[in-house]
């Protein structure tokens, strides 16, 4: 018989209290399943990206720099040691952004899956948080893989190098949360992608003290670093991994900026999701 049983008991089994508590996890579960369809792609990016950077910039450029500055090093250490926390944070930012921006636009505009999620007991805030948690998961995965590749290339000569893992993840999710809020607000994504790639991601990568200390930049360009999660995370990463000298008040400021970005991003994103779904 091809008739579906409509009184089998899920009316009793439907559990709004459970959804209220765990809704974001259900969304994350669904998002993770979708992400896993790209497993090999994500793995390839996560491994190839650091491998290429370490060979070209780390070994090529690094070798040249180390030879010229001699034992003084950059910031007192080998170039690769200096560079590692920044590269790690950059990878975290990229993957967190991929996993917040695209699914958010897809959910609101391309396939409108958020609307069908919202026709269940799930709330806009839970959907927003679920997307974010999936991005967090991917960021952790990417950063750990990146770290392993660095280790493989012998790019880690500080015993505390692993401390750059949490700072990188921190940078990634802070930026990801903000970008998720921006993406949720978008009506026209085409212009956004052009702006994001050329005028946000690229300058952030180049002007955040990634390849050289921010202070070597003329002062009027340093503001880019100040608003960049990449710079704050990199400074923290350098401080933790090899003892890069910063004052304790700066340590606090770096933390505060990243936390503020994260909290503001999560709050705004939840609000914008809720509003847009209720339109």
């Amino acid at each position, binding site marked *: 018989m091809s008739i579906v049983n409509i009184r089998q008991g899920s009316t009793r089994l439907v559990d*709004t209290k459970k959804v209220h508590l765990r809704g974001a996890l259900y969304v994350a579960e669904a998002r993770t399943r979708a992400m896993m369809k790209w497993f090999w792609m994500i793995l390839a990016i996560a491994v190839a990206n650091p491998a290429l950077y370490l060979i070209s910039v780390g070994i090529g450029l690094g070798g040249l720099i180390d030879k010229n500055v001699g034992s003084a090093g950059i910031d007192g250490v080998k170039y690769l040691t200096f560079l590692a926390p920044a590269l790690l944070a950059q990878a975290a930012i990229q993957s967190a952004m991929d996993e917040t921006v695209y699914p958010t636009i897809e959910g609101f505009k391309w396939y409108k899956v958020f609307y069908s999620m919202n026709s269940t007991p799930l709330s806009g805030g839970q959907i927003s948080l679920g997307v974010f948690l999936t991005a967090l998961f991917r960021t952790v995965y990417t950063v750990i893989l990146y770290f392993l590749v660095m280790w493989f290339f012998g790019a880690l000569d500080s015993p505390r190098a692993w401390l750059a893992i949490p700072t990188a993840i921190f940078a990634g999710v802070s930026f990801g949360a903000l970008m998720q809020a921006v993406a949720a607000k978008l009506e026209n994504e085409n212009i956004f992608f052009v702006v994001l790639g050329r005028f946000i991601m690229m300058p952030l990568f180049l002007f955040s003290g990634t390849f050289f200390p921010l202070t070597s930049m003329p002062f009027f360009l340093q503001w880019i670093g100040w608003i960049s999660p990449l710079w704050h995370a990199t400074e923290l990463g350098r401080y933790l991994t090899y003892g890069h000298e910063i004052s304790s008040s700066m340590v606090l400021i770096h933390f505060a900026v990243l936390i503020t970005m994260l909290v503001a991003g999560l709050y705004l994103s939840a609000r914008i999701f809720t509003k847009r779904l209720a339109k």
Partner: protein
Amino acid sequence: MSEFLISARGLTKKFGDFVAVNGIDFDVRKGESFGLLGPNGAGKSTTMRIIGATSQRDAGTITILGKDPEKHGPQIRAHLGVVPQQDSLDMQLTVVENLYIYGRYFGLPRKFVKGKIEELLTFAQLEEKRDAKVETLSGGMKRRLTIARALVSEPEILMLDEPTTGLDPQARHILWDRLFRLKEQGVTLVITTHFMDEAEQLCDRLIVMDKGNIMAEGSPASLIKDYSTKEVLEVRFGSDRNQEVADKLRSMCERTEELPDRILMYTEDGETLLEQIYAADLHPKTSLVRRSSLEDVFLRLTGRTLIE
């Protein structure tokens, strides 16, 4: 709980200055199949989103399953099955995965959902496509999957927004058959459509909407009886002559409607009327006698056709 699953009074929704739903009243009884018929932009989908407890009203009252959606959104949504106008399936996931994740959104136990999926695949005739990615399915299959998805929680009310728009005739008939079976089982259906044949096939009772207002309410048969004649004679004289003969035709029957390409003549007996036209030495290029439909009701009420 009262006999009404949904009860709305003075329901109003505005988007800026635009009034999408203009103070409408309606009730939906348990087990009935209730339709909202009207052209695009009539306010049907907006009304559906308010019933679906996702969009909030600006004025008036509404209770769904005895609760106010403003205060109990998630509790109401827990017992609704929603089939939106656009399928909004997760294209990257398979058929089974789509059903599974949706069941989880209701807090249903994994084991229960897994059993339920088998039943739903049979219902939607998608057994062979169970592990196919959704993006590879045809339009009709996607639509059936969306309906199956809405049934995963065994909802009290199944809401369908334009269920067959964009489907070919065969796919529509398969879908109507599935919906008819649900109706037979006593599922309460709320359907919006701009197809009069769909409304006639599926709805026990319907409201005719236009520009945010309810124009009429009743069963398809009673609406036709109240607002139209038994038969309609459609005649075409060619676009140049239609205007010319219109005055003569008007005096020959109860009422006429002049459309750009043809003239509709409302009468109890179409064949006899046609004979009279020939007797008056008017020779239409084509003629057709048919029974009145909801399309005629809508034309009478608004002066416009449903699909423009």
